[in-house]
């Protein structure tokens, strides 16, 4: 198929960017969206132009590296799908496709579709861990935990940190990302001990990074490739309010 692409091109964070038009022929419907951009980049290399830069890694939907706004939606038209798992069969011959980077003040654009998501790393560094002394691995069954709780914790831990929640949020809130980590650890016996400090530190860091507030539109859950539930945000609020009241 033949496509008209409108792609955001930007040299560096400090320089202004703009949408640039490209025509691309011979796109197969079996290609993934990223392979389609690979094809475009090959034609650009042939013409001696700079390629369109974008983040990607595993290309099997589990790493959270790829992510862009496709036709105005995070990761494209399908709900709960990463950009690499979106295939060209979701488009048809003659379509115009708008491709932009995820936008948020806390996600500065590095170049083209590539953004700096290290704000997420700093939120995790602020408390997304447990303090455990290293040494011999303890007997696994010495800590009692039910199957339902481990499953719930794992559902939260499934977040791949792609940033689609921030990109799709009208307030550029990182509440879904942060709450997933907070809930994951708050559910587990090892994480419970530091739950109050963790939630306060991570929420403060989220604020310091310049992410917005959550107004519960629930758009993030729709776009999240891992279907992380918005109820984790409720859980984060619960843990935070508890810390406000109980924390010395």
């Amino acid at each position, binding site marked *: 198929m033949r496509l008209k692409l409108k792609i955001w091109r930007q040299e560096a964070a400090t320089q202004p960017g703009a949408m640039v038009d490209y025509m691309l022929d011979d796109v197969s419907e079996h290609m993934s969206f990223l392979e389609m951009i690979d094809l475009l980049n090959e034609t650009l290399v042939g013409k001696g132009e700079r390629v369109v830069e974008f983040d990607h890694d595993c290309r099997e939907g589990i790493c959270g590296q790829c992510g862009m706004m496709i036709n*105005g939606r995070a990761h494209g038209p399908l709900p709960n799908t990463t950009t690499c798992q979106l295939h060209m069969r979701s488009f048809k011959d003659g379509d115009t496709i708008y491709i932009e980077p995820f*936008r948020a003040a806390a996600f500065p654009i590095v170049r083209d579709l590539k953004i700096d998501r290290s704000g997420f790393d700093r939120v995790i560094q602020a408390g997304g861990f447990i303090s455990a002394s290293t040494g011999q691995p303890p007997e696994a069954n010495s800590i009692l935990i039910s199957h339902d709780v481990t499953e719930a914790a794992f559902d939260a831990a499934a977040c791949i940190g792609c940033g689609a929640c921030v990109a799709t949020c009208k*307030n550029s809130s990182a509440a879904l990302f942060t709450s997933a980590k907070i809930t994951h650890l708050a559910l587990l016996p090892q994480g419970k001990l530091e739950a109050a400090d963790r939630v306060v530190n991570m929420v403060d860091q989220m604020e310091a990074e*310049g992410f*917005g*507030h959550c*107004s*519960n539109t629930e758009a993030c859950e*729709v776009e999240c490739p891992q279907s992380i539930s918005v109820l984790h945000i*409720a859980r984060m609020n619960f843990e935070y309010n508890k810390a406000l009241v109980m924390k010395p």
Partner: protein
Amino acid sequence: MKTNSLQYKLWMSGTGLFLCFFLVIHLLGNLQLFLPPDRAREQFNWYSHLLAGNIIIEIIAYVLYASIIGHTVYAIILTVKKSKANGTKYVYDKRGVSSVWYSRNMGLLGTIIFLFLIIHFKDFWYQYKFTNLPLDAKGNKDLYTIVEKAYQQLWYVLVYEVALIALGFHLLHGFFSAARTLGVFHPKYVRWVKVVGWVYTTVIILGFMAMPVYVYLNSL
């Protein structure tokens, strides 16, 4: 602990839920407008007089004013923070498909409600508190006549209906969002909150919407 958006949201939630509670009392009191006109006049004026002279009601009234102002001020602060957090705008934006429209436009709905409140306060609250209204047969200030005259004008009734529809959508999202900000996370109770929010909004809004229409139709 630093002040952050989550704490602002807690204030939004607290003030919002108080306003929700106030609406219930306001609706119950105003149900007296549905009595036959003569009885309604007597009873409504007596009720207004009862409220005006009660110290507890006066305290609640100050909490009400504070809630309206607080809810508005925190909404403005959060809106300013939000536009900072957004950074550059999308050239092509279809993000709206993944959430309901009223959840994304609480600010717009809130502005409509705020403008409506200015009219509402000016025409009833201000009239009652700060002007010398004529007295009814029992010697109470005749607020009922003010209400009756206001709702005899079709355009005025329409302004009320539009504002109440805006309030309805604001409540529909606001009630549930407030509960979430407070941390209701258990799926069982989350379902209940949604149901209660819908029932609450429907009853409140249909009740209030019926009042101007009822008075208008009675005057024809």
